[in-house]
């Protein structure tokens, strides 16, 4: 972060070029991204993203919290896909503990994760289209997103910062009427995707602004650490849900959309098709939802049910001990990665055998994806920078942590 440094980061080259400062309060930088652009007329000669404006030291904070207290922090990293972050963190801790999770909890996690993906992609689609000038799409996307937020509120009591998953399962059984509401949503949502596509996919203005813009080759994408739709839009076929499955994803049938062109339109197509695939996964999860417990049988780790806590002495003691002392995690280290809407979200957790993590590192997809931006934009028009930023779907909370 260079905002306190009076000397400019980019030196102006010859007198042909000028430095243009974009952000951090620019609406199309999706938060507080600052970009320094060296431009020659309308052409970007050099580009340098400048980050750190949203740095809150979450990794440091984690070291001072019990394992179960870290879950709410993970929501705040990527506020558009809280469930994905919750999932990745609890999976990592469960791997450290060697904990088996009941099938119903795993399936519920998949269900909610895919709803989160739809939610995140809807925000992306709306804002990305708005950046480029298609204002209407935003209104339609947020109409459907509202329904997902209401579903989240139903299960977790929160619209955005859900903190719904726990180490060893999920916080509560979903309430009555939850599955019907999700089924309802999954029923009408494909039609709504058609509506978005009617507005954009065949639209000649949209095509002019996105096709052939901000191209990236698969070699560059891999070398720069891009993941998720940013990588798949360049023709690299990898999706951690399919290739390195976690939380029962191997039991679901879905396609991984890949586009070869590597431009803004290719990334757009990848994400829009992912919306359809996610809806199909949600339907499969509803149809095949197993019966049984939603929490692992691990009394020292999983909080007891409220009912038992009020009536049984042992449960009360466990409850008291978990809340006040946390639970010790055997020493060791794990790296757990999940496919977040933006790419590979990874948690690297080191335990020293105590009740607080020794080190938590979040491998954020956007942090690496952001590095592809200069590659996409240098030598291209200034107006395309906005399209390129939108197409990698950054969330600054996740970049700066």
């Amino acid at each position, binding site marked *: *972060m260079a905002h306190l*440094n009076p000397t400019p980061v980019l030196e102006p080259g010859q007198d042909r070029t000028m430095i243009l400062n974009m952000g951090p309060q620019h609406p199309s930088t999706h938060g507080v991204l600052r970009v320094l652009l060296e431009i020659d007329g309308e052409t970007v000669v050099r580009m340098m993203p400048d980050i750190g404006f949203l740095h809150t030291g979450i990794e440091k904070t984690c070291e001072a919290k019990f394992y179960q207290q870290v879950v709410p922090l993970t929501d705040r990293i990527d506020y558009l896909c809280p469930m994905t972050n919750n999932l990745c963190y609890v999976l990592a801790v469960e791997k450290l503990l060697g904990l088996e999770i009941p099938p119903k909890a795993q399936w519920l996690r998949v269900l909610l994760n895919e709803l989160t993906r739809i939610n995140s992609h809807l925000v992306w689609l709306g804002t990305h289209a708005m950046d480029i000038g298609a204002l209407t799409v935003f209104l339609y996307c947020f109409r459907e997103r509202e329904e997902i937020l209401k579903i989240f509120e139903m299960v977790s009591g929160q619209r955005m910062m859900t903190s719904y998953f726990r180490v060893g399962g999920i916080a509560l059984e979903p309430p009555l009427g939850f599955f019907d509401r999700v089924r309802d949503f999954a029923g009408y949502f494909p039609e709504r995707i058609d509506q978005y596509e009617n507005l954009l996919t065949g639209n000649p203005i949209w095509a002019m602004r996105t096709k052939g813009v901000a191209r990236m080759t698969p070699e560059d994408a891999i070398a720069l*650490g*891009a993941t998720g739709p940013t990588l798949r839009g360049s023709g690299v076929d990898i999706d951690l849900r399919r290739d390195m499955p976690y939380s029962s994803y191997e039991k679901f049938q879905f396609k991984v959309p890949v586009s070869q062109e590597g431009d803004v339109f290719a990334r757009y197509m990848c994400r829009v098709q992912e919306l359809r695939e996610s809806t199909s996964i949600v339907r499969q999860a509803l149809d095949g939802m197993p019966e049984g417990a939603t929490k692992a049988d691990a009394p020292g780790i999983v909080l007891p049910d409220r009912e038992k806590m009020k009536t049984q002495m042992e449960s009360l003691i466990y409850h008291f001990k978990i809340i006040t002392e946390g639970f010790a995690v055997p020493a060791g280290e794990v790296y757990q990665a999940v496919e977040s809407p933006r790419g590979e979200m*990874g948690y*690297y957790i080191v335990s020293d055998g105590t009740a607080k993590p020794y080190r938590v590192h979040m491998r954020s997809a956007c942090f690496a994806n952001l590095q592809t931006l200069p590659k996409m934009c240098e030598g291209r028009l200034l107006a395309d920078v906005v399209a390129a930023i939108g197409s990698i779907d950054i969330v600054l909370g996740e970049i700066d942590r």
Partner: protein
Amino acid sequence: MTLAPAITDLEQLKNHPAVARLLGWNTEAVTGVKFDRDEMTIYVDRAHIREACVVLKDDPACPFNFLSDVTCVDWYPAEPRFEVVYHLLSIPEKERIRLKVRLNSGSPAVESITSVWPGANYFEREVFDLFGVRFTGHPYLRRILMPEDWEGHPLRKDYPVEGYR
């Protein structure tokens, strides 16, 4: 809830493809191994980390062609104090591996791997910013998350959680 004990014996793990590949290239580069919770860790000598990455990346059988992550762990007050941790992924084979370099506390420095994966750039800058580990040969080693004039490296264990008052 059963955890298999970690395997740290090099003899037992020398047939793991990545370990075999590194040992076949330079036996001095590998200073230790650990197989724990289905994850493979290779301790690499500090002087050889960049070449080790090249060797693993160019492995024809299982190319670790993708750099997932670079981070660091501070074991203050133990020595060697810092562990720089690299997570590699093989996109064709869907395998992961973790490389570790141990560094002493006196002006910790390790060779940058930005020449192998340009994507290491931000990750190394982050480690430099938050831990104060220098990466020699890095094209632009400056603070990335903290302000330029910040003092100290916040993720070090001797840095208080509430910051210096």
